[in-house]
């Protein structure tokens, strides 16, 4: 089994680890780094595993860990500035039920609201359509992101 050493920054900390080349980034984040990355389908259809890669949202199950070499990866745990505002909005709007998809939606919301962008409801729905939630029907998530945008 071929392995490679990957040097990347994860939530602001540089790390160097040896990973099997076949391993997706999502698996390394969840199992090696014990971070909040959920893996729900492994094929890019649900958005549960999304992270920020150099500040841009991507599906971490669709990247090999070795491809993150030299890049900065941010999970929910690394969203310092935005997280409290997002958590407050999600909580106040009862956006989350089982919580399994929450990390992915949090990343998607953080990405959507970057640079002070204030999306409309339609833009929010379009912006999060890559993320599946089976519990909530999305209403609370949309309301939360609208609120977080207004608070920002």
């Amino acid at each position, binding site marked *: 089994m071929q392995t490679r050493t990957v040097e990347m920054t994860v939530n602001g900390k540089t790390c160097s680890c040896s990973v099997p080349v076949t391993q997706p980034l999502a698996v390394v984040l969840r199992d090696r780094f014990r971070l909040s990355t959920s893996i729900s389908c492994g094929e890019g259809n*649900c958005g549960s595993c999304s992270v920020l890669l150099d500040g841009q949202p991507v599906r971490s199950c669709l990247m090999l860990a070795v491809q993150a070499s030299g890049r900065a990866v941010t999970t*929910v745990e690394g969203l310092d500035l935005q997280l409290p505002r997002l958590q407050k909005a*999600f909580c*106040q709007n*009862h956006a989350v039920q*089982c*919580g399994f998809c929450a990390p992915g939606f949090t990343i998607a919301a953080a990405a959507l609201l970057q640079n002070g962008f204030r999306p409309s409801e339609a833009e929010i*729905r379009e912006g999060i359509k890559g993320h599946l939630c089976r519990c909530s*029907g*999305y209403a609370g998530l949309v309301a939360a992101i609208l609120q977080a945008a207004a608070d920002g």
Partner: protein
Amino acid sequence: MLGKAIHRSEDARLLSGKGRFVSNLQFPDMIHAAILRSPHAAARILEIRTGQARNLPGVIAVWTFADLKDVLKPIPQIAPHPSLRPRTPYPLVDKIVHHEGEPVAIVAAETYAVCRDALREIEVRYEPLPVVLDAEAGLSGSPRVHDDLADNCAAHFGQEAGNVDAALADCDCVITERFSIGRVSAQAMETRAVIARFEPDASTSRLTVWCNTQSPHILRSLLAQQVGLPRFDIRVIAPDIGGGFGVKNRYYPENTLIPLLAIRLGRTVKWVESRRESFLCTYHGREQVHQVTLGLDKTGRIRGLRDRILYDQGAYTTLGIVVPHITTISVPGPYRVPNYQVECTAVYTHKAPSVPYRGAGKPQACFVMERMLDAAAARLGIDPVEIRRRNLLQPEDFPYNTRLQDADATQVLYDSGDYPKCLEKVLDLIGHNSFEREKRDAALAGRKLGLGVACFIEMTGRGPYESGLVRVEPNGHIVVSAGISSQGQGQETTLAQICAHCLEVELGSVHVRLGDTAAIPLGIGVYAGRSAIMAGNAVALACAAVREKLMKAGAAILGVAPEAVEYTGGKVRELADPHRTLTLGEVAMRLYSPALVFPFPAGIDPGLEALRYYKSSRPAYSNGAYAVVVEVDPETGHVKIVRHALVHDCGNMINPAVVETQMTGGIAQGIGASLFEELQYGPDGRLLNASLDSYLLPRATEIPTLRQAHVVTPSPFNPLGLKGVGEGGTIPVAPALAAAIENALGTGMKLTHVPMTPPRVLALSLAAREQSDRTEEALIRS
């Protein structure tokens, strides 16, 4: 505390990425398991060769039925019924495969990647057998799904209230229709997962199993039978669960296999279901065919209804006839049906078992009743809303005896409700009065809008019991437990609200611990909208007992008679001298004191806790009305939901926000099953769309924000006056959407299959256009 939409205590951890999901749990020394599954829906296994797989580096074990035949037993049939000819699977297939995805071999290895490689090395020779893929075909009896049964009939049952033949013979209007509801998959965001650890020297339970199950205690009992350990030697933990929806309530083969691996290999074993496996072998829901006859008088009042149901059971009777039986007693719904006769045949097919999936038989029943009313409205020239008004049960009809019997032979009694009020309110919310004008204006702009409405009821809070445990700790904090686990419905918050209310304490001092057989000895679990009613009332009973003990013990500590104290605001207070008070913590301190000085008076035991069981055999009936406006693209059949509204009555609400999010989520699943979701099989019985890019779940772009309002008619059937909410949203969506689509296209009642995908809607659109072209032509010619 009750009735307040407070924020959920669960959110603190779930929104920080600290949710404890079994699929994410890691243990030192953990190994992984993976399962080889039959690619055939029906087959005889001729030979299995595991030698190559066993030799791969990192592989620890490869087992087939032959390796475990001394220990494997069929999974117990837990829902017996006199009419049922049950069949349940073994945890590994012995000789005959009965549905695609059945487990044929299991591998344990150091890493999941090695497991996957090992699976590829296992060679299985199958002899494919002929398949039965639908209930109607299965009725013929050939081929047979189970060779040792005479045919494919899993069960046949029915009942009658009144005299339908006589009623139908004497009606002004008789309508007959056939409806079919497609098969769906629950598709929770977290797939199933099991972790097992066996510690032969542990002093408490030697076998610990983490499983995202909706019923930890039931799982424990069945697991005990399966692995031959006593119940007390097993602990089942269901921590955070990423969605359940009914299908995580069943006992699956992996629930036996993973613990067996742990016991025999002496390692902690983890198995996580892949997304594809969740389609193949997490059990399915819904598939039914109804042949219905409805008789009405010319004012549109129902005189009689007959329904013949075929239920596609799948290969095994995992939960007996529970789902189709619920359908049989739910068809009349919120309406007065003076004569009703129903018959149901459950048929074995070579598909995964069909089990309760959110709604559990009620969505199908509502679809049938509402569609028949729409058909009758069209036939009789009565407005579809008006025909419902004329048939809805009225407030003065309650408690209403349907004269039907539930599967446990209890009478089906509706407790309370104001059905007409919900209907009127939803019409208001959706803008019914101004809709004709809205529709005309849209038509001028070339857009086809339509409106549809459906009324529904929801049986909730099935018994027979649930447990509640309340314990006051010496620091004044309160620990609450119940025999349920949570899949995100907010029970940690709502049960805390009940406790805080009953014991008059700060919410923050209540800690709810669910999903652990070590936290409470007995329990049933979460399904059929029972958490609030059953666990809620159990916790309330336990709180009442704690409160009573607080007063007795408090009085004894204060040195006064029990009648000389009161309990208010979280304190025991001497009536004659109100400055003399004791907090809960102070009372608990004495009752748990390590100093052993407190003299325990007669009638007072140590500790300050109570375990209570709330027992009930009378479900409470929630109800509501749902309305939807759609826009239909007549050239593509695409349906867009423009807006929708729901008015719902679940009696007293512990937390209105929790109620509303349950309803929104249920509606979303209803929309999925109505417009997008259907499992599709090839002629060989293999699933064609076992992935999220071909089995489509609705996204944020498909579901506009639901307008919601509530009506409150408390239930007289339980002390807290609660009615459940878990399933309601799934029930009325399909018929309301069907009616809205037909309204947009200007057709009569034509949509009789769920889901109503674009091809089906396009067919309707083209037929409608052809019809209107012909009408136009005729007009021009005349």
